[in-house]
């Protein structure tokens, strides 16, 4: 099926190997980290005895690990599609992988050997003030792990920046700003290049912010005389954290633009609203982070107002450009509902629906009673578990090609159904917990809250069963050489 697997996406063997490394690692990490999540949920529901020290280690590893892993998977998606238009360096792509793995080892060692449990947000001064639960060395190890991972991604973006500039002149032209106010849009300008330009601009800045705050924190860890301002550090951390996790979505969504049209048979080109959506997102993702500091009343009032208003407006491109565009692309298209298409539309639903509780929580008066309750993991698991992960899974199912023209295996469809139902139930239990004012990040839950925890545990187990199926299928497909690189015989 050349329409599904065009020739310019066939990878030379070494590139294929690198991509397989990224994807198999992503799958394996997701599965393990989901099990960590299940253990936490069962502990909260009193179905499992997990001492609080271990709970908070699991929480730290799960948060840092998941954020890193979806970024790893997202960068594989971006690399795979962007390399059709610009020439990306394979050594840099591999360097990013190696630094990621080294960083991951440090994070795991810091957490499970050094007992570091300061949370993935390493909010100053908790990493250096644990009351003796972990050492400053363990905290420094954790932050060094972050630095390695950040350096890897920064190299990846710098290489992409170099490659994009070589072809398009500058990042602005790649983003399409020359067509915002008029002019005839080049309809062949790839959405992938637009999205990649945004990602490069935003996440380079995000990672630089992260590097600054990590170095500041490391300095302070060993030279406490260098006192930091907790409020300033919190600003930097949430700037970095918000950008980094959001960019994972913007990298993975490239799979929607590239793949959905192939299954519907309808092109999805750039348009002025599309370009406006991405240009606006470029700015908004960078300045929206004060919505994490609405309960820090010492922040200037304009920052809180900005946080609320930009949170509202950042929803617009998602609703009116990407999700709306996907629905238009599918509507009466005679789409063939193979697994990649099903996963892609699920991802659009998860993203669009998941930002509803997110946007509502960015309202200051709502935040007053929802901030740091389970409402927060409720909304972000919604668009990560049911949004970003399906994008990554769709990409991989597409790559292994098995679902393209052969009837889906019954198992794939059952796993999909389990994933959707389990995932929805799981995130709704978090949101229900938020409605009931259950605090987030509590190792021990009061008896009135445990019902949600127990339902969520069952739901999480269902998700994990589905994920196990996906992982086995996808790993076998990826390792056996997908249709994308070797057209199956007889066609």
């Amino acid at each position: 099926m050349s329409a599904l697997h065009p020739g310019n996406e066939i990878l030379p063997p070494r590139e294929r190997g690198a991509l397989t490394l990224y994807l198999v690692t992503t799958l394996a990490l997701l599965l393990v980290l989901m099990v960590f999540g299940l253990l936490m949920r069962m502990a909260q529901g009193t179905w499992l005895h997990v001492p609080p020290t271990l709970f908070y280690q699991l929480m730290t590893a799960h948060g840092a690990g998941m954020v890193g892993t979806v970024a790893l998977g997202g960068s594989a998606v971006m690399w795979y599609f962007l390399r059709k238009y610009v020439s990306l360096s394979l050594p840099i792509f591999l360097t990013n992988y190696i630094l990621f793995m080294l960083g991951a080892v440090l994070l795991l060692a810091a957490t499970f050997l050094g007992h570091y449990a300061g949370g993935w947000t390493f909010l100053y001064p908790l990493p250096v003030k644990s009351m003796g639960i972990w050492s400053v060395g363990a905290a420094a190890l954790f932050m060094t792990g972050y630095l390695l991972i950040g350096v890897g991604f920064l190299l990846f973006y710098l290489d992409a920046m170099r490659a994009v500039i070589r072809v398009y002149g500058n990042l602005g032209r790649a983003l399409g700003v020359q067509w915002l106010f008029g002019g005839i849009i080049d309809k062949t300008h790839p959405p992938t290049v637009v999205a990649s330009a945004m990602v490069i601009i935003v996440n380079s800045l995000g990672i630089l912010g992260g590097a600054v705050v990590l170095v500041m924190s490391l300095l302070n860890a060993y030279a406490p005389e260098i006192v930091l301002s907790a409020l300033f550090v919190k600003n930097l951390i949430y700037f970095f954290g918000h950008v980094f996790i959001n960019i994972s979505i913007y990298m993975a969504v490239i799979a929607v633009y590239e793949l959905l049209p192939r299954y519907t048979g309808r092109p999805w080109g750039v348009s002025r609203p599309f370009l406006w959506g991405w240009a606006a997102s470029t700015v908004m993702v960078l300045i929206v982070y004060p919505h994490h500091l609405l309960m820090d009343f010492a922040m200037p009032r304009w920052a809180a107002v900005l946080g609320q208003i930009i949170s509202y407006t950042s929803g617009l491109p998602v609703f009116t450009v990407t999700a709306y565009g996907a629905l238009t692309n599918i509507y009466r298209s005679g789409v063939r509902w193979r697994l990649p298409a099903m996963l892609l539309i699920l991802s659009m639903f998860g993203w669009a629906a998941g930002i509803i509780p997110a946007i509502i929580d960015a309202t200051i008066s709502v935040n007053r009673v929802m901030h740091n309750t389970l409402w927060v993991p409720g909304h972000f698991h919604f668009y990560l578990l049911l949004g970003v992960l399906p994008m990554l899974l769709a990409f991989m199912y597409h790559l292994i090609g098995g679902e393209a023209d052969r009837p889906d295996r019954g198992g794939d469809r059952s796993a999909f159904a389990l994933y959707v139902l389990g995932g929805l139930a799981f995130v709704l239990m978090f949101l229900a917990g938020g409605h009931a004012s259950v605090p987030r990040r509590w190792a021990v839950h009061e008896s009135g809250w445990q019902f949600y925890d127990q339902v969520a545990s069952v739901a999480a187990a269902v998700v994990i069963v589905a994920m196990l199926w996906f992982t086995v299928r996808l790993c076998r497909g990826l390792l056996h050489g997908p249709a994308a690189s070797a057209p199956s015989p007889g066609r």
Partner: protein
Amino acid sequence: MSFQDSIWLTTLVGITGVALVFLYVISQSGRQEEPSAVQARAYALRRWVFGGLIALGVVVTGASLRPFPIAPQHTLQPAPQVIRVVGHQWDWQVDSGPIQAGIPVAFEVTSADVNHGFGIYDADGHLLGQSQAMPGVTNRLVHTFTQPGKYRILCLEYCGLAHHGMILEFDVVAGAEEQS
């Protein structure tokens, strides 16, 4: 219906609405129509969707920011009751003295070590309001208790091993008028 109930309901309605739109489009996906015809109609409809969302956003923004939901931080007018709150790993240090219902109380919240979250819960477990407790910073949270009775403070910012143990119960007594 509590404030939380209305937030929950709004969210469920929104999610269901999005789900219905997706299900409708999926139900229509088997038929085939000219892409250009679909696009023309979709683009026309999008203007309305976009305009509608903007209008909704403007109304909600206006309504939700006035009066501004965060009390002034620097004010010359002292609140009738002032209670100083200091978070410690892992307990709360709160000024003693009665807190009266019906009269605004200003909690001046800070921390002696790491970040904590000062969350006020009523006897039924509803979160009434919160503020961060940050070292080196004082956040001023003004709240008026409507009912006398037992309340609790729960920590709402992860602060290490015994974060979930940072619970303190306190009493709110009837205000002067109510007593007479």
